[in-house]
């Protein structure tokens, strides 16, 4: 072929392509369903203009709270709570609940009759994650920070000012609580054990209570140093656990074991859950008969507290997740109601429909029963707000 003909054909092809390109550019209509034209190969980043940012309207996120309302179930705080205490009141005084704000460590009191909220400590303890307050409202123990920067602070709540008198605790604490005698119980990790101690903040005296002969221990504290405590290895669905009862400093192995085992209870009975044939199941072990009774629904013992009866947050959910690990990780949450287990009858029954009544998903944790058994407090894990279910109303 001659060279000029070759050049002419080439030029015509180029002009044709330019023409097609111009036509597509100016006259074609874009496809309304691009996904049908181009396959999503999932290569790296995509910019999705159809995304609608979530609403940040505070009015829709923050519920209106009326603490002094006559409703039996009510939200007490809109601040995230690190810990709280139903403060012992005399017959003439109104009932108060003290709570520590998560993050700041500030302590507030709420008058449960008038609904008045008052800051009683303005001393900031940064990154406060967990706290307990003695029932007389005089002392507090606060955990703050994380990892190697975790700190434990002992605070004395002033009745005359909003300043917290603080003192740092140097021990490596793994668990702590308060007692009805206004002392603190805490556990310290050693090389091969966990040692439980009682600290009296009034006299500053420390007393060893018992030793758990392994390190990865969970201690279910009694409400008094002299009470019956329980200890078990931290739960995992893939590892076996065993429960030890501790009376007067002596450990006694109970006939309760299993995978994913965790428990709560008192001298009358123990509510425990474990994985059996890939199913998460709950039992109530009656201490007087030494018999375990199956319980429905399956409950997570970390959502429970006991006085005489055992009260738990839970739902009739069939757990599809690996329990309890997934809940511990924060990868699963539940819409809980309250259930009560009676040691006399070994039966569990619904107490009140928390999530149903409020039409909110309330994932109950840190449940606590007041000493008279009337008020049940709990924290919603999802937003860390404090709630109250008053059985007297």
């Amino acid at each position, binding site marked *: 072929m001659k060279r000029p003909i070759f050049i002419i054909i080439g030029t015509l092809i180029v002009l044709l392509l330019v023409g097609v390109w111009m036509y597509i550019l100016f006259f074609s209509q874009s496809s309304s369903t691009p996904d049908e034209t181009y396959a999503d190969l999932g290569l790296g980043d995509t*910019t999705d203009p159809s995304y609608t940012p979530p609403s940040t309207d505070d009015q829709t996120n923050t519920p209106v709270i009326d603490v002094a309302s006559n409703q039996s179930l009510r939200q007490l705080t809109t601040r995230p709570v690190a810990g709280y205490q139903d403060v012992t009141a005399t017959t003439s005084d109104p009932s108060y609940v003290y709570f520590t704000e998560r993050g700041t460590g500030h302590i507030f009191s709420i008058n449960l009759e008038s609904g008045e909220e008052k800051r009683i400590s303005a001393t900031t303890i940064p990154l406060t994650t967990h706290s307990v307050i003695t029932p007389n409202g005089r002392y507090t123990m606060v955990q703050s920070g994380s990892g190697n920067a975790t700190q434990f602070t002992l605070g004395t709540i002033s009745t005359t000012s909003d300043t917290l008198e603080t003192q740092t605790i140097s021990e490596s604490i793994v668990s702590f609580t308060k007692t009805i005698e206004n002392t603190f119980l805490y556990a310290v990790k050693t090389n091969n054990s966990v040692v439980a101690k009682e600290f009296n903040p009034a006299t500053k005296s420390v007393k060893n209570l018992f030793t758990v002969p392994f390190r990865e221990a969970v201690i279910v504290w009694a409400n008094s140093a002299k009470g019956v405590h329980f200890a078990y290895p931290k739960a995992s669905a893939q*590892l076996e656990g*065993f429960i030890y009862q501790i009376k007067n400093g002596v450990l006694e192995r109970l*006939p309760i074991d299993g995978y994913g085992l965790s428990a709560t209870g008192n001298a009358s009975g123990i509510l425990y859950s474990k994985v059996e044939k890939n199913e998460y199941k709950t039992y109530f072990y009656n201490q007087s008969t030494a018999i375990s009774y199956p319980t429905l629904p399956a409950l997570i013992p970390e959502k429970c507290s006991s006085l005489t009866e055992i009260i738990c947050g839970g739902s009739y959910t069939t757990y599809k997740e690996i329990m309890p690990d997934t809940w511990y990780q924060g990868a699963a949450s539940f819409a809980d109601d309250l259930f009560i287990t009676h040691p006399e009858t070994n039966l569990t029954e619904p107490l009140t429909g928390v999530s149903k009544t409020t039409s909110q998903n309330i994932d109950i944790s840190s449940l606590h029963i007041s000493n008279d058994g009337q008020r049940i407090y709990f924290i919603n894990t999802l937003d860390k707000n404090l709630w109250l279910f008053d059985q007297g109303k």
Partner: protein
Amino acid sequence: MRTFSILCTLLFAFTALPAAAQLTSNQFTNPEYGLEIQPEFPRPGETITATLTDHRGSSFGATVTWLVDGKVISTAENQRKTTLTAGKIGVPQTIEVILSKSGNTSESLKKIITPLYVDIVIEPQTRTPDFYIGRSLPSIGSIVNATALINGSKIPASDLVYTWRIGQQVIEGGPIRGRNQVSYTTPMGDRETLTVQIATTNGTIIARRSVSIPSVSPTIQFYELSPLFGLNSKTIIDSIPLIGNSTVIKAEPYYLDSRVYNQPAISQWKIGGITTSNQSSNPYEITLQRSWSGGSTELEFQVRDTTQVLQGAKGSTRINF
């Protein structure tokens, strides 16, 4: 010829020893006859199966009577096997079987069991976040501490001799007195059996327990980190909306060897598939700043050891902004 005779003599002499050993334990000279208990070391309240093993036929035509602590089990009369429940913790229980033959002759076999609890507490030295209240799991190459707790024995734990095995390998080279805690490195494979055998100082085995230990792959979960409140304990499941101008995300590698977590050979963040230089002093945290509005991008993190390449994890989530 002389040499051949010596060799033959030696050969017969050496082969005679194992043959004699075979004969001494052989059923032809000493037939199997005994009482077998399963499980060998029962827990309190556990169901026990007691079996009469008699291959010499001496029980032929005999009346078989089973007794527990001297009391006859009426339902087990003339049975070669019976089931019973182990007694209370630390209380010895005598299981006896009597073979009564015609002519008022009888033979009796007896075994004493003491129900004990032997618990093995597994404490893997792998990473979980501070707020995680569960136990971590072993991953390949990680250290596991195991503690044997014996309940019901009157002998102090320090006077007992412990023999630990992981798979077929004896830990610490052999039995050690008072050593109820050991450490071992998680071997290859999804599961391994850890066994502890506990004996008295005179060699009597009083308990044995085996547990199957899993070995899992480390995984990554993402959490939002607030400068005021700390780590949010709820995972970012599929995606997280970037509502403000910036947010801090923390990657938490579950079950990663603690040594690797503290000194990771590789820790890498990718945004939209592009490796990013992390400005944070903590390699597990990244601060994301909004650079334009409307969109979604993938956030990826991986941590890995270079010597044990299976000791690592990779995870991703999406950021909507």
